[in-house]
């Protein structure tokens, strides 16, 4: 499995020694298992959505699992993830309980945000996952503030901020990278270039071939990596995370990948050529990892089936918990606006009269 890494610029003084220490077998298997679980989780979420078991939109990252797994698998709880609108699986990778994730899909009172955000837009405070907004690239800017706080507190926690290639067209994307560069912040920007921003081709998004080139303008390293190669993604991400932890500043990683399905479940994605989809499905990151592990005698179909069936059972149980959980009380619409309660203000409006 070739590691296609192009280092565009390294002018921060950090060394790129190409040591690429061997990744242990356990880690290889862990990455495979996590990718497979993410795939199963999202296919299940899509099915639930199709069955109208929950309302709202779902934004699947099926086909892109290697990016999130490679970048997220070794993060500490104290590290922050700033997710985009398509990063539901990062919750699982970072350790959020499945019951919380399924409750999120169902908008239950037991969901992390108590029924407020869209199904796939899940945050988790205790694991430092920012609850995302739908406004693109905002999470990168907020991520720089968390990185600034880490720097000021002199701890070695990092921020990994995810976005898509479409986000690079926004001013906010550039404000975030510029600020991270000028303050030398402990943050890694992961640009998941899946070629399509809803229906708009990357060719209409930017003139450069590799998003990583954009890092040159901000004075820190930019790297383009095969986002369907989880080992390449892992190596590049670990190097960037280590650099950020040790005070070496930010990195921009462009992971070239592809989303198999539409922007959301209501998008049939007819704007893309069928051949393009087939070409990318042939580059399925999970199948590729199966071939790699088979070559190392670390894979068998039985093992895969066992992992899958165990995980499906966990999903079944979590879905059951979510389905049985109560929705929020209607009145809770008025909660969590401020640090103080507004129920009384909204519900009990005094009327004045001359006799008052």
């Amino acid at each position, binding site marked *: 499995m070739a590691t296609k890494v192009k280092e565009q610029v390294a002018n921060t003084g950090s060394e790129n020694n190409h040591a690429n220490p061997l990744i242990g077998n356990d880690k290889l298997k862990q990455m495979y298992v996590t990718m497979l679980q993410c795939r199963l989780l999202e296919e299940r979420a899509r099915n639930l959505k199709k069955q109208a078991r929950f309302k709202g939109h779902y934004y699947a990252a099926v086909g892109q699992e290697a990016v999130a797994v490679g970048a997220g698998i070794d993060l500490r709880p104290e590290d922050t993830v700033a997710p985009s609108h398509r990063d539901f699986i990062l919750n699982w990778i970072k350790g959020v309980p499945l019951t919380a994730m399924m409750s999120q899909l169902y908008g239950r009172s037991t*969901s*992390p*945000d*108590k*029924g*407020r*955000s869209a199904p796939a*837009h899940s*945050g*988790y*405070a205790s694991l430092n996952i*920012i*609850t995302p*907004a739908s*406004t693109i690239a*905002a999470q990168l*800017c*907020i*991520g*720089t*503030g*968390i*990185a*600034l*706080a*880490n720097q*000021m*507190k002199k701890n070695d926690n990092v921020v990994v901020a995810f976005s898509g290639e479409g986000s690079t067209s926004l*001013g*906010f994307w550039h*404000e*975030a990278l*510029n*600020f991270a560069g*000028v303050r030398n912040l402990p943050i890694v920007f992961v640009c998941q270039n899946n070629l399509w921003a809803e229906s708009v081709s990357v060719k209409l998004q930017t003139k450069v071939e590799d998003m990583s080139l954009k890092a040159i303008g901000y004075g820190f390293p930019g790297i383009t990596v095969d986002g369907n190669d989880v080992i390449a993604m892992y190596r590049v991400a670990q190097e960037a995370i280590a650099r950020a932890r040790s005070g070496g500043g930010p990195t921009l990683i462009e992971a070239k990948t592809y989303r198999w399905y539409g922007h959301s479940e209501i998008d049939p994605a007819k704007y893309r050529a069928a051949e393009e989809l087939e070409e990318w499905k042939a580059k399925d990151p999970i199948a590729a990892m199966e071939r790699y592990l088979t070559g190392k005698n670390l894979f068998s179909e039985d093992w895969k089936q066992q992992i899958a069936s165990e995980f499906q059972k966990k999903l079944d149980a979590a879905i059951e918990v979510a389905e049985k959980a109560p929705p929020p009380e209607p009145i809770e619409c008025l*909660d*969590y*606006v*401020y*640090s103080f309660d*507004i129920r009384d*203000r909204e519900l009990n*409006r*005094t*009327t*004045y*009269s*001359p006799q*008052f």
Partner: protein
Amino acid sequence: MSVTYLDAINAALREEMDRDPNVFILGEDVGVMGGAFGATKGLIERFGANRVIDSPLAEGIIVSASIGAAMSGLRPVAEIQFVDFITPAMDAITQQAARLRYRSGGSQTCPLTVRICYGGGTGGGLYHSQTNTTWFAHEPGLVVVAPATTSDAKGMLKASIRQDDPVLYFEHKKLYRLPAVKEDLPKGEDTVADLFHCAIRRPGEDATIVTYGYMLQIALQAAEKVSEESGAKVEVIDLRVLNPLDHETILESVSRTGRLCIVQEDHRTLGIGSEIAATVAERAFDCLDAPIVRVAAPDVPAIPAAEVLENFYMPNVEKVVDALHRVLQY
């Protein structure tokens, strides 16, 4: 010793930074230069460049980075040099800061303070004179304050920094060095002001003026003039907080006076006066003895630079006196 509104802001920042190591400042020209108006003067010398950060020229990241830092437990005080330049930060303020607590079900919060210089009457022209307070008063999740006095400038800034919500703190540039608002502030006293209520700055029984910011000075002068001319006693309420509005103080006053005049520097349509008038009409209709009158800037895009045009635009004592006569003589 008598201090200016600007001195009060500077003292509040210094005292809060002394008190809490988590408080820091981020903005354009706040460090080496000490702020465009001098509000952060001397702070970089006292607290260093890591706590008084000269930011890149980008309002979006000033507010966004402050949101992230606030989520991490710090107490950022961001500065927007002129409200006219706040638009690049609109997503950060309205979609992120205002919504974070709500969208995370209370699990993630960003207690930041954004100091914002606003206001006309200084010949600043289209892009150094605006009063866009209403954009933010419309956003639940934001606390929006506009101190009109020097003691409030200090006490409300200290309270804003300690408030567990995103607070937009609007400071009027005409008040910065205005001799009329200089005050003796008790030295060494940790005075933290209330962030939830209006203040009655002049008691009266014949009519109520509701206003905020620099317009309080105009309203007080107009009330005095009307009193001298006709003997009418006009109550003047300083809103202090534009969001969430303290309805009760206003309604209680109108229930006594029966007449309401709202004075705002912002232009008329859907300004803060519209909300106050609607609230009084809904909840104190029987108390009104005259139609509600608004004194506001005209609905033009911004304050023109030429002096005669700016004077036409700005509410002033004569316009408020006229409005009071109309309200009182109905």
